[in-house]
């Protein structure tokens, strides 16, 4: 019975009622007046400080006046000798962060404490002073801080060292003067002092490579007392390793032995840090990597979730470049798929998807299916993205992977998740032609019950482009017309456009499409009605909208030939009047071309809303070039290169060049940006010296009339060359312009200009410029379907190379072909490798290349190059490129 009563008492005492319930700032500030009492009550004062801290920790803020008031009151508490209260006062002053003019009130008290005989007063006073101090005051107390760093009491030393770490950001020149004392502290026998001293010393020396290397050398030989300091040392040594070079003779790496010895340390933290550091070494060899992977593998079955997470996260990173090295851990990772911690399970899955081989795909898919139902959307998206990569890696497995994607598409999920799945299906359809029909049907089924307007419209747009190219486009019509009956106006309008596209492309379906479009003429929404009317008259070819069948297709499938930004601006500037808006009045110059290209280059795999970057960029270029009369007769643009920088970063004028290749011409587009606000450049052109490019003759220049500050513009130079010849050469470039001064405040331009020139880097036209990167989904099939008589095989010696990877990337850059089936990734220290490449040679000739590399003797690389193409002369040309490269 007594026990029961006791329990009740407990409940009363620890009830839900908060001691701070209903706490109000005003009331607490009133209470803070007790700090001014002549007879201080330390207990009461501590309670009031606690309440103030509670308010601050809840996000409450004090006005300047309130904070000053409390601060002055708190300083009075220095009179009390009560230790607990003094400790609270130190904390409170730090929390209040008094302003520079208030600090003076408390400085003398803190200086007194800093010289006190009581160690703890010293330590805390240092922390508070360093928190609230400014430069001049710091100079005054610097002497004491230096003493404190080597104080025999570790708490005082640590307080000064940690303060130093913070002060290094605001007053680096002062803290750097403490190096000798910090160096002494690094040798301290107190573990934490050594940890803090090491952190500070490294921060002081981090920009001095030699000093950082010396520090690491001395410490790796000495004693490091705490695991935390040991971890720091491991990080610093891997930084030194990164910056150092491998000893070419022995192949040894400095400090590798140290890292390896840390794998046998008793603290898990240190073992793991060392293992991770080894996996992150540049060009790590299998011999170096193996012990680290073995240690990490053990952590995979640790009882501590943090260690399991860290281990699988590291393996995931390794798997991106060295999937084979991680394969040994696959069984352990498979058991992590059922880990309670979903972050661990997701990482395990995505790692397995990278390390698995073609034969394990089906088994993995089964495991993932059961796992998907109980993880959050954000994890599911990661899995979907991994599956997309896997599908592109093993195109033959598209059936299993596509069926997985379509299954999860039917399940519940938010917008981002569904978008990731749809994007993946679209990318798979684009890259694997065999997957098109089934993929489109999955998308059709999805829009039958899709709650996201955005996704429905995107899919309808995609169906309009791809559906007519399939064997039986009629089967999609039902799904599309259902949208017209069941969906909201936006989706209905999209569906109408899609129907029209199919009607335009497939003559046999035209009558049925007309019937359906006519039904849309009575839609309740005007946009839907307008579209239906427009498309009916377009498709009927009555001549009111377009003239010919070709025009119909151009109208329906062609993209807007003006940049959207320009169109938006022109529409905003258009004032309603009798004169209709003329789309031809919209400027076609792409203002932010440079930026758009950089973005496109950084984002490789994209889904529905952004078609693959190369296509869109080349479209933009083609439109831009064909709008310039001088170049419009050059024919079809074959290829545009990525921009080549012709200036250093952050120079006065930033210029990069894009090479546009035609059958008989090369046009160089110079994208120029003026980065000086006080200048306006006019009549900008590039003077090209083609003496080292004899096969080219200059045929035209299009100067840029004006180049204002920070508004990119383009100038062009066109060259003629012989048809069917892959002419190469080097152009020297000089930017010529008239510079005028601008007053940046009033933007007034000086009338007088001065002619000036600016030297640019050289630009080379290379063989790879004449080859388009186009992949094939199944290299073997493609290879075997080509005429074996067109095959040309030759062997080459590539000389001494650092690694096989280096040799492969040199040849790939030389040829500019698309690597297939992931063969561009070479395991480090591999002795042989086969790389499969494909592309289109100028003149639309398909080319496939098999490169077999092998290392002969000591780093001598030999290569066998086999080429097949639609035209035997192109096979020879590829050999010529390699032979002359």
């Amino acid at each position, binding site marked *: 019975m007594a026990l029961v009563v006791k329990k009740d008492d407990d409940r009363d005492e*620890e009830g839900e009622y908060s*001691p701070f319930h209903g706490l109000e700032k005003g009331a607490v500030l009133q209470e803070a007046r007790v700090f001014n009492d002549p007879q201080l009550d330390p207990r009461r004062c501590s309670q009031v400080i606690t309440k103030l801290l509670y308010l601050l*920790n809840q996000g409450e803020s004090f006005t300047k006046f309130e904070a000053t008031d409390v601060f002055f009151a708190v300083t009075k508490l220095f009179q009390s000798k009560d230790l607990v209260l003094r400790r609270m006062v130190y904390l409170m002053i*730090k929390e209040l962060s008094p302003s520079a003019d208030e600090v003076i009130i408390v400085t003398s008290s803190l200086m007194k404490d800093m010289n006190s005989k009581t160690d703890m007063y010293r330590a805390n006073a240092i922390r508070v002073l360093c928190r609230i101090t400014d430069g001049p005051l710091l100079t005054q107390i610097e002497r004491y801080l230096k003493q404190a760093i080597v104080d025999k009491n*570790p*708490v005082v030393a640590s307080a000064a060292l940690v303060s130093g770490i913070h002060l290094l950001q605001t007053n680096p020149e002062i803290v750097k003067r403490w190096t000798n004392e910090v160096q002494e502290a690094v040798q301290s026998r*107190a573990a934490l002092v050594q940890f803090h001293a090491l952190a500070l010393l490294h921060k002081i020396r981090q920009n001095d490579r030699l000093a950082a290397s010396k520090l690491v050398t001395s410490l790796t030989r000495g004693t490091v007392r705490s695991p*935390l300091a040991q971890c720091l040392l491991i990080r610093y040594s891997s930084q030194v390793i990164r910056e150092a070079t491998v000893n070419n003779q022995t192949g040894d790496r400095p400090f590798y032995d140290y890292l390896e010895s840390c794998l046998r340390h008793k603290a898990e933290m240190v073992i793991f840090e060392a293992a991770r550091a080894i996996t992150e070494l540049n060009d790590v060899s299998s011999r170096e990597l193996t012990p680290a992977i073995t240690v990490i593998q053990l952590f995979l079955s640790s009882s501590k*979730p943090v260690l399991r997470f860290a281990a699988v996260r590291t393996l995931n990173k390794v798997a991106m470049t060295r999937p084979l090295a991680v394969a040994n851990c696959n069984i352990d990772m498979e058991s992590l798929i059922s880990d309670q*911690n979903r972050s661990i399970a997701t990482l395990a899955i995505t790692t397995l998807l990278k390390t698995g081989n073609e034969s394990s795909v089906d088994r993995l898919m089964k495991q993932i299916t059961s796992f998907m139902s109980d993880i959050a959307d954000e994890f599911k998206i990661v899995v979907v993205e991994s599956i997309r990569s896997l599908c592109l890696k093993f195109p033959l497995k598209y059936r299993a992977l596509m069926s997985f994607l379509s299954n999860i598409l039917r399940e519940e999920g938010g917008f981002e998740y569904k978008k990731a799945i749809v994007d993946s299906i679209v990318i798979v359809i684009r890259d694997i032609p065999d997957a098109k029909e089934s993929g489109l049907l999955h998308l059709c089924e999805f829009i039958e019950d899709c709650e996201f307007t955005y996704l429905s419209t995107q899919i309808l747009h995609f169906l309009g482009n791809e559906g007519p190219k399939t064997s039986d486009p009629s089967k999609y019509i039902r799904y599309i017309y259902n949208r017209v009956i069941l969906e909201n106006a936006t989706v209905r309008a999209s569906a109408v456009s899609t129907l029209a596209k199919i009607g335009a492309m497939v003559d046999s379906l035209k009558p049925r499409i007309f019937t359906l479009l006519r039904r849309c003429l009575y839609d309740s929404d005007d946009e839907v009605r307008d579209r239906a009317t427009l498309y009916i008259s377009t498709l009927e070819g009555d001549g009111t909208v377009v003239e010919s069948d070709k025009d119909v297709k151009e109208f329906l499938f062609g993209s807007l030939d003006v940049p959207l930004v320009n169109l938006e601006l022109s529409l905003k500037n258009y004032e309603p009047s009798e004169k209709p808006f003329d789309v031809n009045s919209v400027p076609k110059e792409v203002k932010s071309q440079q930026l758009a290209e950089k973005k496109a280059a950084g984002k490789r795999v994209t889904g529905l809303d952004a078609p693959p970057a190369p296509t869109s960029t080349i479209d933009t270029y083609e439109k831009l070039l064909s709008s310039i009369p001088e170049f419009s007769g050059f024919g079809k643009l074959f290829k545009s290169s990525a921009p080549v920088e012709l200036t250093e970063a952050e120079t006065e004028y930033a210029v990069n060049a894009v090479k546009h290749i035609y059958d008989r011409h090369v046009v160089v587009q110079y994208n120029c940006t003026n980065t000086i606000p006080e200048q306006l450049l006019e009549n900008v052109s590039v003077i090209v010296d083609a003496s080292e490019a004899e096969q080219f003759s200059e045929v035209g220049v299009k100067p840029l009339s004006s180049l204002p500050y920070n508004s990119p513009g383009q100038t062009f130079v066109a060259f003629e060359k012989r048809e069917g010849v892959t002419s190469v050469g080097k152009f020297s470039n000089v930017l010529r312009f008239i510079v005028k001064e601008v007053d940046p405040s009033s933007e007034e331009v000086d009338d007088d200009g001065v002619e000036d020139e600016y030297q640019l880097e050289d630009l080379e036209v290379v063989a790879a410029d004449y080859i388009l990167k186009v992949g094939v989904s199944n290299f073997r099939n493609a290879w075997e379907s080509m005429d074996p008589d067109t095959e040309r095989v030759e062997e080459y010696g590539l000389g001494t190379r650092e690694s096989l990877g280096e040799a492969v990337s040199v040849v790939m850059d030389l040829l500019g072909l698309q690597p297939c089936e992931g063969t561009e990734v070479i395991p480090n220290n591999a002795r042989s490798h086969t790389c499969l490449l494909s592309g289109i040679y100028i003149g639309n000739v398909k080319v496939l290349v098999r490169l077999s590399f092998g290392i002969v003797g000591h780093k001598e690389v030999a290569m066998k190059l086999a080429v097949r193409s639609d035209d035997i002369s192109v096979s020879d040309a590829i050999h010529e490129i390699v032979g002359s490269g």
Partner: protein
Amino acid sequence: MLLAVLIANPEGNILVERFNGVPAEERLHWRSFLVKLGADNLKGIKNEELLVACHKSVYIVYTVLGDVSIYLVGKDNYDELALSEAIFVITSALKDVCGKPPTERLFLDKYGKICLCFDEIVWKGLLENTDKERIKRLIRLKAPTEF
């Protein structure tokens, strides 16, 4: 940098919140993100069992102790392992101050001492003290015994 230390009650109300190097406008986002993370994952978790997550380049280690949930957010040097070390120090100090895994009431009763403990463990984003005995003495301004 140890970006944030956050302690909340089972309803997700904040009891202690300390940010370092996190812009003021992002704090609310972090607070709601962490509380949601806890609500989704901490149910049925044993005391001091660590959960871990990463969000972009930032790591999060979190756990429950009695009635309160504790979240640590770190980046760069403060990865999941360093954070688990720091959270271990925090849970030991909390148990020490409260005498047991705290109820919310007990936590608030000892609020002042707990704030002092935090001041000794993490100061402006750096781990400062790791030994609970030492922390216990330091918050009473007593010099550590073991040097």
